[in-house]
């Protein structure tokens, strides 16, 4: 069967993937793509600014070749002869087809405003658009986006991120996201966006784009004007049906290729799927329905019956920095329903849930500022679950301890679609779990759930757990297939039985050879318990790559070198030496966010030589590569600052030197501020200390990173010794009880009893283990040695820092650098 696909976008690609899975014996598949790149993830288009085209690709060009797909890129189809069943491309390729698939997507809709053709006016749809926007934005100081919908806001955020601080969003309607949220939600959202630095103008109709030849501003129907040197138009989409029109296929009045429920166009051997298709008189502007259409088309092509009957259009906005979601019917009327509304202007949260008048059913809703419950609410709504208890509780599921998604998930019917991108139902997932596929990775592989946008992953995890427990399986968070124990159990076993190497632990308590999950967990426990040289006793190969080479691996395979600079204090002499070493080994240097200096781009073979010189100058390892203590930041404190209450630098150095090298389930960071102005940002650290009139306040369990959370006050007005005593206890307790790769904040969030319990253990010694925790910490402190010093002085360890075992002095010849601002950078991924 000869199949030709027009369009290599998201849906066109998915079609290829799915039809290959059918393993048809005589398939000849050809794909024409207008864009120069193979299909990429348009949903995450904005990520392109921070990554590369390659990282967005759904599959490399090799993939097409390996699967026997003829891929013609940069070559749009120009004409179709439906009688001869033949397509003609721009580059004059002529091809016959049995089945033709339109997956031409849509283009940005540009309203006919005078001046849209001026320089500096762009749309936001392809990588090519983004390339042009980025280049042009360099010289623009003010920007505007026409359209306050999902894409418009995304584009506006992108302009901000490109450095255009003066960016406005112009919306014709009276509110933002007019199709998703109501006025009240929009007002909250507006405030949040204003805090990000966006100016929001609603009820504005643009009458003209001014400037010659390039845009300088906009004028509006109400007579006002706005300065803008760059403009992105995001006023909706227009299906790409021009080729279909030319071929005489039926198209909709307002555009779109008309299809029946089998995705067939008016010519039965031609199908249309994705954003170009007009199904049920609707254009579905999301990927998930597009994927479903691909499925339906393939079923019908291969002789199974399947219909496309519509799709839920609930959405959640990514990226902008404010959670926004809407689902079901967000705008019900009082006749049919009652809305429960929660509004907190202070923290910028708005939630509206529309409940049927009998109180039995969730019809839809809007979430702004906190969309953590989106998945569960969406499922409750889609599956028409009967609400029990007080409907109000739905607003606050996350506030009640122990009340997680798993409570509601068991009620979902088997047909409930959990992963809407890949169309995977609850039943499919549970069946796989019952059949023995009990890990997230296993489920991803077996069903593809969670492999596209990833939004359903927490639900998939919950499903695995609830299914297992319904089978009477005791769910412990066992490490992996090689150890039938949780981290805490293994920790206790290793401690009680005095085990010192991964091999011993595997021999006694595991089976198989271990893997990339259990090895680092066990290696980290060994380090936390004994604080021995981590590369000894065969433990080197059980360490994560960064720990194994005592440096962070980077793009291209070089490493970074981060010497410890306690408290961020450094002498001019030491600064000079770092500079000299960096120059000698040709390293890129940068100040880090942790108040120290990172030297990037070191060849593996150079690492011991670089460290030898650093150590000779009095530096030691900064453990930037380990799940270990990182930095203790300091503010300048009372030695210089007119507000300083105590000497925060000296205390920070003391703390950093006490806990340096300490290994833990995840990395730990700290800071000491000299007064409540908090210049060291101690409240964003795993433990942070702030000077008070009477001593120090100790805060714990904060972090920055992907999910920032402020630290909470554990104890106040402590003297320096007591403060350290509490930190000893706190850290040891965390090390003993946390799951692998769990930062202190996440650990606290899961800890039964929360901060009150923790305070009881640490401050009131409610478990009676205070002395023990302190003694254990003191032993670790006593055992500290600089790992790099041991490596450079131990030939057997040093030998491992070679790229070629049979040519130990040679560097990896494939490593490449590019120049940037008179330093080097890693060459782009291929």
């Amino acid at each position, binding site marked *: 069967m000869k199949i030709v696909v027009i369009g290599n976008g998201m849906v066109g690609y998915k079609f290829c993937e799915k039809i290959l899975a059918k393993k048809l014996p005589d398939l000849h598949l050809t794909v024409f793509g207008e864009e120069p790149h193979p299909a990429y993830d348009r949903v995450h288009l904005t990520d392109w600014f921070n990554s590369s085209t390659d990282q967005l690709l759904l599959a490399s060009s090799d993939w097409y070749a390996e699967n026997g797909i003829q891929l013609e890129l940069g070559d749009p189809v120009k004409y179709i002869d439906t009688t001869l069943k033949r397509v003609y491309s721009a580059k004059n390729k002529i091809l016959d087809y049995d089945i033709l698939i339109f997956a031409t997507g849509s283009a940005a809709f540009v309203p006919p405003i005078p001046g849209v053709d001026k320089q500096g006016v762009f749309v936001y749809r392809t990588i090519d658009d983004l390339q042009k926007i980025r280049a042009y934005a360099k010289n623009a100081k003010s920007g505007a986006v026409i359209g306050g919908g999902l894409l418009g806001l995304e584009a506006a955020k992108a302009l901000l991120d490109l450095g255009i601080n003066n960016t406005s969003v112009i919306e014709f309607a009276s509110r933002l996201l007019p199709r998703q949220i109501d006025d009240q939600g929009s007002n909250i959202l507006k405030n949040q966006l204003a805090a990000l630095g966006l100016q929001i103008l609603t009820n504005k109709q643009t009458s003209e784009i001014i400037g010659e030849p390039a845009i300088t501003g906009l004028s509006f129907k109400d007579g006002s004007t706005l300065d803008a040197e760059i403009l992105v138009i995001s006023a909706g989409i227009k299906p790409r049906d021009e080729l279909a029109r030319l071929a005489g296929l039926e198209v909709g009045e307002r555009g779109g290729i008309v299809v029946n429920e089998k995705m067939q166009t008016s010519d039965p051997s031609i199908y249309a799927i994705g954003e170009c298709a007009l199904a049920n008189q609707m254009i579905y502007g999301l990927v998930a329905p597009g994927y479903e259409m691909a499925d339906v088309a393939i079923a019908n092509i291969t002789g199974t019956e399947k219909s496309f009957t519509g799709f839920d259009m609930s959405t959640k906005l990514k990226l902008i920095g404010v959670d926004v979601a809407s689902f079901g019917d967000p705008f019900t009327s009082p006749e049919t329903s009652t809305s429960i509304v929660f509004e907190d202007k202070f923290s910028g949260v708005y939630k509206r849930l529309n409940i049927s008048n009998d109180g039995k059913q969730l019809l839809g809703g809007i979430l702004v500022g906190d969309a953590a419950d989106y998945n569960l609410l969406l499922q409750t709504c889609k599956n028409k679950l009967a609400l029990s208890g007080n409907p109000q509780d739905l607003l606050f599921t996350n506030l009640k301890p122990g009340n997680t998604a798993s409570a509601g998930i068991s009620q979902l019917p088997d047909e409930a679609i959990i992963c809407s991108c890949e169309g995977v139902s609850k039943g499919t997932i549970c069946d796989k779990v019952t059949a023995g596929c009990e890990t997230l990775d296993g489920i991803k*592989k077996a069903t593809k759930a969670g492999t596209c946008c990833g939004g359903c992953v927490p639900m998939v995890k919950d499903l695995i757990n609830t299914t297992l427990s319904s089978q009477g399986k005791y769910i412990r968070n066992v490490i992996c297939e090689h150890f039938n124990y949780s981290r805490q159990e293994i920790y206790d076993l290793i401690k009680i039985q005095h085990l010192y190497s991964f091999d011993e632990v595997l021999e006694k308590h595991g089976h198989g*050879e271990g893997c*990339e999950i259990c090895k680092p967990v066990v290696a980290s426990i060994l380090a936390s318990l004994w604080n021995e040289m981590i590369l000894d006793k065969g433990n080197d190969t059980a360490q*994560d790559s960064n720990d194994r080479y005592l440096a962070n691996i980077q793009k*291209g395979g070089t490493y970074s070198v981060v010497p410890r600079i306690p408290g961020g204090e450094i002498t001019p002499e030491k600064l000079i030496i770092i500079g000299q070493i960096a120059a000698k080994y040709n390293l890129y240097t940068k100040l880090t966010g942790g108040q120290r200096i990172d030297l990037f781009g070191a060849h593996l073979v150079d690492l011991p030589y670089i460290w030898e010189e650093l150590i000779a100058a009095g530096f030691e390892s900064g453990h930037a590569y380990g799940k270990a203590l990182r930095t203790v930041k300091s503010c300048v404190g009372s030695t210089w600052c007119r507000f300083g209450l105590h000497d925060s630098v000296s205390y920070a150095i003391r703390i950093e030197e006490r806990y340096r090298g300490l290994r833990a389930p995840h990395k730990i960071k700290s800071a000491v501020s000299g007064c409540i102005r908090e210049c060291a940002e101690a409240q964003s650290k795993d433990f942070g200390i702030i000077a008070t009139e009477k001593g120090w306040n100790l805060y714990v369990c904060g972090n920055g990173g992907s999910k920032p959370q402020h630290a909470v006050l554990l104890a106040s007005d402590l003297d320096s010794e007591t403060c350290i005593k509490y930190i000893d206890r706190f850290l040891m307790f965390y090390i003993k009880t946390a799951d692998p790769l769990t930062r202190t904040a996440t650990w606290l969030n899961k800890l039964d009893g929360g901060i009150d319990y923790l305070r009881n253990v640490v401050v009131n010694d409610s478990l009676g283990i205070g002395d023990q925790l302190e003694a254990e910490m003191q032993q670790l402190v006593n055992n500290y040695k600089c790992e790099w010093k041991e490596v450079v002085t131990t030939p057997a360890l040093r030998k491992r820092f070679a790229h070629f*075992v049979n040519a130990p002095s040679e560097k990896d010849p494939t490593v490449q650098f590019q120049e940037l601002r008179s330093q080097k950078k890693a060459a782009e991924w291929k």
Partner: protein
Amino acid sequence: MSTTSQLTATKWFLACDVTDVPTNGGVCVKYNETQIALFFFARRNEWYATQNLCPHRRQMALSRGMTGTVADEPKVACPFHKKTFSLKTGQCLSDESECSIQTYPVKIENDKVYIGIPEQE
């Protein structure tokens, strides 16, 4: 493409001493312009060799990866994004759409490690 598989002669070259390879870990061997990753599973006393290049982002890194098993199949995880590859077949175990890697036979004689390269005529 031919349908009959041709018997190719294997050329064995001396890579290193047995003791040069860390237990349960890998090293990279230089063979002309080619980089080969060599692994030693101490508990099973098994040796494997594959291309050093990880096909995912084309990084010369597999020799620095972590070895292990999944349901008794020996594998290596790339240090960059932890894609895992079977050391027996070269197949990517964590991602069906990822390319396979080339594997090479290994033999040990008198505590020396030899890697077999298919001879090209």
